[in-house]
């Protein structure tokens, strides 16, 4: 159980200013609790990498000044903090390198498998290929295939210093179990130099070992585990709770100016000393309405 830490320690011990970070979590499972703690600790200059996950978290972290670079496939049309920065042409506050979801997935795969690159058949002919940001020349390269004479695009590995994901269950050895859509969460986790799991529930490894086909990620490659009830709120966590759309809507509305977003942060992040206080502030009535009915099988 040596890798079990409080959230505060997990951030303090593992995340340094200037690190690259990815938030896995395709079917909900986004570790908002970890993102809030990054904000509380005033972590800065992170590069945010993503293959289809964490768009709202990016908006939060960019707005809070935690992230200033992103290697991603998308933001959201209603990413108000991101838009305010980009459309205000403050590229020093947030620089984006655009890829596609498959390209970022392949970049994580290449990193996990220690490969020098992955060939890819998309990207060609697009402005994703032509326009270069802070990754520059290394963004996408080309090679002539020695098998058939054809030009092939190659993307470089992307290995985040830290990858974080919220999981439904983790056992005492750190083995991770999830339910719901998975996207590129597996390759995102495998690409991480350090992997941190925040988990809703601690389970007995006897349960894991009865059904090893169902383990999503092995404990031997998890560097830190934090048990955080409601750790994915306001995202959904299948079998536990649904998305808190009201909360997300309010967050979005209050992200319409630096000043108003700062007040939201004061209230919900700086104003709560840890995730338990945040959950207490949400209140029992609200939490009760979020508990979900799901068709996903339990255990």
């Amino acid at each position, binding site marked *: 159980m040596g890798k079990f830490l409080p959230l505060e320690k997990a951030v303090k011990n593992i995340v340094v200013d200037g690190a690259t970070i990815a938030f896995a979590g*395709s*079917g*909900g*499972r986004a570790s908002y609790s970890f993102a809030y703690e990054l904000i509380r600790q005033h972590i800065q200059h992170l590069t945010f990498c993503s*293959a*289809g996950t964490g*768009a709202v978290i990016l908006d939060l972290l960019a707005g809070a000044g935690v992230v200033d670079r992103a290697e*991603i*496939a*998308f*933001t*959201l*049309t209603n*990413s108000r903090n*991101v*838009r305010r920065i*980009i*459309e205000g*042409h403050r*590229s020093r506050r947030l620089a*984006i390198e*655009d*890829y*596609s*979801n*498959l*390209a970022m*997935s*392949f970049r994580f*795969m290449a990193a996990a498998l220690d490969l020098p690159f992955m060939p890819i*058949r*998309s*990207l*060609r*002919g*697009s*402005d*994703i290929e*032509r*326009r270069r940001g802070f990754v520059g020349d290394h963004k996408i390269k080309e090679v002539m295939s020695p098998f058939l004479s*054809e*030009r*092939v695009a190659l993307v470089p590995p992307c290995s985040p210093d830290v990858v974080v994901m919220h999981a439904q269950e983790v056992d005492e050895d750190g083995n991770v179990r999830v339910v*719901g*859509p*998975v*996207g*590129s969460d*597996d*390759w995102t986790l495998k690409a991480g130099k350090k992997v941190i799991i925040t988990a809703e529930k601690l389970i007995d490894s006897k349960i894991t070992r009865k059904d090893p086909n169902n383990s999503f990620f092995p404990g031997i490659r998890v560097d830190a585990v934090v048990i955080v009830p409601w750790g994915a709120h306001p995202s*959904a966590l*299948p079998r536990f709770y*649904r*998305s808190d*759309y009201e909360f997300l809507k309010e967050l979005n509305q209050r992200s319409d100016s630096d000043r108003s977003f700062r007040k939201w942060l004061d209230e919900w992040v700086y104003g709560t000393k840890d995730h338990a206080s945040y959950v207490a502030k949400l209140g029992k009535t609200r939490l009760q309405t979020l508990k979900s009915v*799901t*068709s*996903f099988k339990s255990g």
Partner: protein
Amino acid sequence: MTRVDYKAVMLIAAARRISKGNEVFVGMGLPIMVAMYAQKSHATHSVLLNEYGIVDPMMHEAIEVADPAFGERSAQLCSMIDALGWLLRRADIAVLGAAQVDRYGNSNSTVIGDYRKPSLRIAGSGGANDIASLARSFVLIMDKQRPGKMPERVDYLTSPGFLDGPQARERCGLPGGGPEAVYTDKAVYKFHPVTKELFVQSLHPGITLADVRKDTGWKISAAPKLLRTPLPTPGELRLLRSLDPNHVYLD
């Protein structure tokens, strides 16, 4: 005379492209409504797929794009690489949303204006570039066709149509077949088999060719026999609206 629901006209027109038993790879947003509607109306046994690895979800109503409830009662939850890299290539048709579409069917969902100093940051590719590059065939959905949304060249080429014209996809080694139609809230557009240029195939009820040309950044051609997109029947509209009781995608 009642107001025409042009969004419904567009979605239902696009849904007609989908046939019984088709595998439909759906992009994020409105495309989901197109595929769901097709499945519940005429395209029985059609199967939805998306980039998050959701295979054949049994959806009865529209939900937010990122909601994991999407995956409930699906046949399989596989990986994004499986979905975009493997399943997509053999799907019958893909449906993609776009914020700008140009003369050659290239689409933009990244920025409006200069890339370095944009007036609007939209979203980015997500899986759209991969879908447009790799799908056997795809159609584009663009709501709210207005001046500037169909320029001669998109501000940022997020997802390839026919690029600069004939043979350009082949020169880039893009394996997919490219776009076959664009559905907007004013008209249905197809691509000329030789020039690969967009032309107007069908105008929605009450829309004139002049209305459409006002929005396009080049002198767009029209089919010799310009069609009129059918007005959805009350039954069709009822079905469409019943699929989005919470107004996630429809007003």
